[in-house]
């Protein structure tokens, strides 16, 4: 699936929730089930320190596709990470570079990507893009 297709799928899933509680419960459950980042990648180099929560991101590339793993110490942040990874992981670096994050607005989670939240997610998206740029350079 392309990034756009995955994002559309996520938007459709979220449209079935009736209120914020269902939406957040889903994210909390996602946060609990997110495959953890390999402990060896939870290093100081991979950490994004938000004022509120910490985020770890690791990337590697196989068959021209970038795979992301990540973790957070806060479960709602982790839930959003799970959604971001679902959208951006296992994609070609160039597709990741060109993709946008509008779908986060559409599923009612825009507030979590506000810099004032200081939860590390804004930096995480930047990091995802930077990894993609780096891997794209390798491919060129």
């Amino acid at each position, binding site marked *: 699936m392309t990034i756009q297709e995955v994002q559309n799928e996520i938007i459709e899933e979220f449209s079935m929730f009736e209120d*914020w*509680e269902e939406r*957040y*419960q889903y994210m*909390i459950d996602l946060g609990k089930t997110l495959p953890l980042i390999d402990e060896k990648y939870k290093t100081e180099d991979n950490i994004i320190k938000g*004022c*509120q*929560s*910490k985020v770890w991101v690791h990337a590697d590339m196989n068959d021209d596709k970038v795979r992301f793993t990540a973790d957070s*110490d*806060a*479960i*709602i*942040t982790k839930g959003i990470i799970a959604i971001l990874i679902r959208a951006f992981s296992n994609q070609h670096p160039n597709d990741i570079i060109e993709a946008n994050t509008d779908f986060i607005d559409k599923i009612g989670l825009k507030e*979590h990507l506000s810099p004032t939240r*200081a*939860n590390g997610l804004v930096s995480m998206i930047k990091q995802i893009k930077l990894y993609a740029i780096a891997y794209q350079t390798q491919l060129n």
Partner: protein
Amino acid sequence: MDLKVMLDVQKLRKDFPILNREVNGKPLVYFDNAATSQTPKQVIDVIIDYYSNYNANIHRGVHRLSQEATDAYEQARIKIQHHFNAKHAYEIIYTAGTTHSINLVANGFSSLLKKGDEIMVSALEHHSNIVPWQMLCERTGATLKVIPMNENGELVLSEFDSLLNEKTKLVFVNHISNALGTINPIEYIIEESHRVNAAVLVDGAQSCPHIKPDVQALDVDFYVCSAHKMCGPTGVGMLYGKEEWLKKLPPYQGGGEMIAEVSFEKTTYADLPHKFEAGTPNIAGGIAFGAAIDYMNSIGFENIANYENELLEYATEQLLQIDGLKIYGTAKNKTSVISFNVGNIHPYDIGTILDKMGIAVRTGHHCAQPIMDYYKIPGTIRASFMFYNTKEEIDLFIASLKKAILMLL
């Protein structure tokens, strides 16, 4: 006498337009008062009146508007002087707030300290009362000593006693801790520090909304606070300094207003307080600061403290009934601030869910990372109350918190 009779909270709440609003479709429950308090219409009206009727630059105009603005601004300074019982109005320096006040003093001391001198700071400080002193130490070669805290969030005074010596030049401590609510024994700290001729700066950012400090009775050398924590506007605060100290400190910023005479060879600085008030100040803010002090005094600080203690006791009792909930900062002497965590749930998660239910609390390290490091936690959830909060709001908060825990566990 029944306390509730002395404080008509429902009537007071009508003074605060913001308390009528909704958040996420729910009535706002504002428990982030330690970060900033809300503003009553009596203060908002003063700001509107200033800009609508007599907005002008102060101290230098001969025209009517400038005169009116100057009078109002200086009248507010006198209100602040009387409120804190300073000996002279010129010992009250208008600043942009607590952080600015602290930086002004720290900067001034860089010419008074030398290598080998010691300055002391408490373990309960806000970053704004740690970083300027670290910078001061870097500039001067002085050493920073820390008064440690205990498990209850109280300063260990025996350690303070043994750290204090002839080399100690300055001691900095907050009157009340922003993260834990502990009321520090500043009377003792001031008295002991003066025995070795060390000056004491007290950060009153968290105390001024709840108590009325008497700077002369305390014999404190510097006392600082922000208007926005005591029903005033943001961007204005004050530095109280004893005349002798303010005369010793060099000016902080150069500019208009702070000079007596200027030539390219030499500039003579203006007298207090203008020496420290370079440039056009926050005129409306200063006047509104005075109005905020009037407003709080019209309620009465004793009434405020009694009522807020009731809220604190009630909320503490309710919170402690929740399984796995731990309160940080259990000092005997504390104000209406409760910092807590529930089990291993991250404070950010609880804060996020509470926001969805219209409840505003603070989460994180509260700019007091050393305290969080002491307890080995990433942060806490902090609920802080003002006199306009109610027990009904606490009930709503507790019910919402229980729901958040259910969702997150």
